[in-house]
């Protein structure tokens, strides 16, 4: 059975149908890149997977549990699926360490000492062991995003959703964040990433999903998607990108 099963998912904002029947199955340990033009529904898809947006039709199942729109089920789901945002969204009033500790202590009721131990380990994993006491505004963009990754990892999710996590970064800071993601992929973390980093998608991902106008227009291994795009839309998209 797949880890994440997305089945005929539809989503509209008012009269604007943004997702028009999406079906994807993601296996444990798989790294999936989602690419496509602006407005094609990539973020909306990711946000539906962890319930930040409700879906109008279809179903989403994570590790055998179907996504339901009530608070208790959503929180169960979010314990399993973490999300990293383009804008980092660290809590600015807390130190990096406290950011990583907060939901462990508040949601999982992990004792403080244990939570701190995990927080230090996670910050170490993203290369920020010495930044435990720094506030977000004392960190560079790349360091903030790595802290956000550590914060999500501390909840021990079985999958991570990443929405253009390097798009808000200065070019020289992109690689340090991608290196962390690469490490996660190597460790077997299931990742679904919306990204414009085509080289990264080609090197690291097992599968690439090309979205176009709210549909999965093409899906396949990166070799095939990038080397032999089948549809004119993908050909044009890749032409524009490179």
């Amino acid at each position, binding site marked *: 059975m797949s880890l994440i099963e997305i089945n005929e998912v539809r989503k509209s904002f008012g009269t604007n149908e943004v997702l028009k029947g999406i079906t994807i199955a993601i296996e444990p340990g798989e790294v999936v890149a989602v690419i496509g033009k602006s407005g094609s529904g990539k973020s909306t898809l990711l946000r539906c997977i962890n319930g*930040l947006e409700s879906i109008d039709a279809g179903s989403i199942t994570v590790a055998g549990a179907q996504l339901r729109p009530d*608070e208790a089920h959503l*929180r169960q789901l979010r314990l399993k699926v973490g999300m990293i945002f383009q804008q980092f*969204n660290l809590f600015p009033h807390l130190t990096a360490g406290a950011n990583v500790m907060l939901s462990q202590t508040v949601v999982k009721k992990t004792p403080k000492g244990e939570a701190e131990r995990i927080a230090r380990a996670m910050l170490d994993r993203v290369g920020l062991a010495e930044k435990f006491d720094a506030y977000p505004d004392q960190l560079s963009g790349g360091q903030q995003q790595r802290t956000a990754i550590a914060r*999500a990892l501390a909840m021990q999710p079985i999958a991570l959703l990443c929405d253009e996590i390097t798009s808000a970064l200065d070019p020289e800071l992109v690689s340090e964040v991608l290196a962390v993601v690469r490490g996660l992929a190597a460790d077997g973390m299931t990742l679904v990433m919306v990204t414009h980093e085509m080289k990264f998608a080609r090197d690291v991902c097992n599968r690439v999903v090309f979205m176009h106008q709210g549909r999965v227009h093409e899906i396949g291994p990166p070799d095939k998607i990038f080397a032999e795009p089948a549809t004119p839309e993908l050909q044009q998209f890749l032409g524009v990108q490179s």
Partner: protein
Amino acid sequence: MSDFTIWDIVRNLLLATRWTVVLSLAAFVGGGVLGAILLFLRIGKRRLLRNFVKYYVELFQGTPLLMQLFLAFFGLGLFGIDVPAWVAAGAALTLWTAAFLTEIWRGCVESIARGQWEASSSLAMGYVQQMRHVILPQALRVAIPPTVGFLVQVIKGTAVTSIIGFVELSKAGTEVTNATFEPFTVYGIVALIYFAMCWPLSKASQSLERRLNVAHRNQ
């Protein structure tokens, strides 16, 4: 002309100032507590309660404090309830303060970026946990300067209660004038006392705002 020295005037006014201070504090504390409760209803999930608070705020912001005071004082009298001036003054000012503080604080909560809600949601926090650990601590910082600034409005607002006979600083000014026939001196001192109370608060509000802005430049 009269047997009153400046010191007599000042002493009488300062004694009455106590009641201005007490009334301001009561309105501020009572209004703060009520305002906090209304705030949670206003930003909560229950539509009916949200609307109730919305109209409450609009009512109190849309009518003069003086009218609210008259209604509290004379209105209840119509029902045969004899309301002492201090009760009417305290109640009206408390309700009025609550309405304004609710609105100020709602603005502060809503100024917190949507990403903070989304990030905390995606970490599986529930509504109360998000409020308690993520939203309110940030909103509180934003709220301090306008809240302190509004205290100045409350202090000045207490002057209105002199009209229903509550003897605070303004009313005492009138009484002392009637006895001394020195309106300029008396009201000059009254103004100075108000200024001495309000000016430090205004300044504090401004400097807090500056300090918090610096601390949060990258937010």
